């Protein structure tokens, strides 16, 4: 279980998170929605310790994430970055198998490659892509390689930062199904950021909306459509007018 309480983060005068409280139960698929630039990525990075919050606490299974063994902590996570964040000096399969090639999860090269190719297949990429370099792939393909890398070591907790942005509808469907499958089959806990409402419906158990630095609304996806909250309604219906300013 991941718990955030009172998490705040500013960059200079820009107050991005202003006291975020959120709980993600084990084995649950939580989807974070919210306008672009509201701090969704910063929120995920705070949990991983890539961004240090100015105030508040974040715990994983009751243990403060800033204390304890960092390697053991990170080994439980997989993360898909918004821009893919592939290592461009390494081949696609070496990216996917990065964790399996070094450190205490290291295995023989041939085996790591096998696993990488299998993970690539799961995100809809042919084995031929394995020996290409990230720069040779389209943006959508890079995103899927990033996804394959995030799930390669079968982590318990997976963060997906906009997994379907930049993908065609069919590929989005494939990725949505995959995320659902990972949560259901592997019992993983997932936290996904997305703007794509079809994605929200396909993968969420619960939804949280981040707005103005706080969690504006959170609840089961089944209650999302019925909520009277005008912010959520504006967002899910994609209206230009409403309480959320279009210029920000």
């Amino acid at each position, binding site marked *: 279980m991941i718990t955030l309480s009172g998490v705040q983060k500013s960059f200079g005068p820009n107050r991005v998170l202003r006291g975020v409280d959120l709980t993600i139960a084990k084995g649950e698929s939580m989807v974070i929605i919210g306008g672009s630039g509201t701090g969704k990525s910063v929120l995920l990075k705070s949990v991983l*310790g*890539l961004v240090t919050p100015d105030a508040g606490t974040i715990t994983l299974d009751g243990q403060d994430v800033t204390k304890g063994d960092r390697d053991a902590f990170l080994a439980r996570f997989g*993360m898909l970055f918004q821009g893919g964040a592939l*290592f*461009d000096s390494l081949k696609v399969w070496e990216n996917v198998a990065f*964790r399996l090639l*070094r450190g205490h999860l290291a295995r023989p090269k041939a085996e790591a490659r096998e696993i990488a190719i299998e993970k690539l297949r799961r995100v809809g990429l042919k084995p031929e892509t394995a020996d290409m370099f990230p720069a040779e792939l389209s943006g959508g393909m890079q995103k899927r390689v990033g996804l394959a890398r995030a799930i390669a070591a079968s982590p318990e907790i997976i963060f997906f930062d906009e997994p379907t942005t930049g993908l065609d509808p069919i590929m989005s469907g494939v990725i949505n199904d995959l995320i659902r499958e990972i949560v259901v089959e592997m019992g993983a806990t997932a936290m996904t950021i997305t703007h794509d409402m079809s994605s929200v419906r396909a993968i969420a158990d619960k939804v949280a909306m981040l707005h103005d630095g706080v969690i504006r609304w959170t609840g089961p996806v089944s209650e999302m459509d019925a909520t009277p909250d005008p912010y959520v309604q504006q967002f899910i219906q994609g209206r230009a007018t409403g309480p959320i300013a279009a210029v920000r």
Partner: protein
Amino acid sequence: MILTSPLASLGRATQAMLAATGRVALFAAAIVSHIFRPPFYPREFGQALMQIGWYSLPVVGLTAVFTGGALALQIYSGGARFNAEAVVPSIVAIGMVRELGPVLGGLMVAARVSSSIAAEIGTMKVTEQIDALVTLSTNPLKYLAVPRVLAATLSVPVLVAVGDAIGIAGGWMVGVQRLGFNSATYLQNTADFLEVWDVTSGLWKGAAFGFIVAVMGCYHGMNSGRGAQGVGAATKAAVVGSSVLILAANYLLTEVFFSA
């Protein structure tokens, strides 16, 4: 107020510089402490050796050959003023191995390597690759900085040695072809006056300069600002910073090595 503000801004600038120096020093100390602790990344080290050592050979060699040649001409015309043209071989050799080989070699490597390290690591930073490394349980300092710093510290002395030899050869070529020295006498003179410490002191300088170049490249890359502009600024800061530091370190090392 008007009178004190220039002083205040000078104070602020000095303070900022001291703070930056402290951060770089801590960064360098962290890298050194990681050199001896596993995990090690031999593949990254090998690639860094190729990039920093091998591919810098042409530029260092070219710099050395022209410098050796020019040095021979200068010393010949300067020496002619007091009938000391015969010192050309020994002064060229000493000047090359003690001073110009390491300093010019170091500066060329600063231009070539410091910039590319800063740009590469800076780009990794702005495209979240450094964050990705962390989430994959890999220490960016160990994986990115240590191999480069180690490779530069070990390979720049070799580059300096090669540069020394090429520089002396450049002086010899000009001496024999243009200034009418006897080839055998020129070489004999070079060998007679050159002491082992002349050469090794230059190699130690090379190691220090290699360390500076890679540390500055890594430091500015890892602290790069956001976007293409951030990477551009990091690259510039790495080249300027490492060049100035090389010249300052050269003076200090020369004091330590040769002031009797």
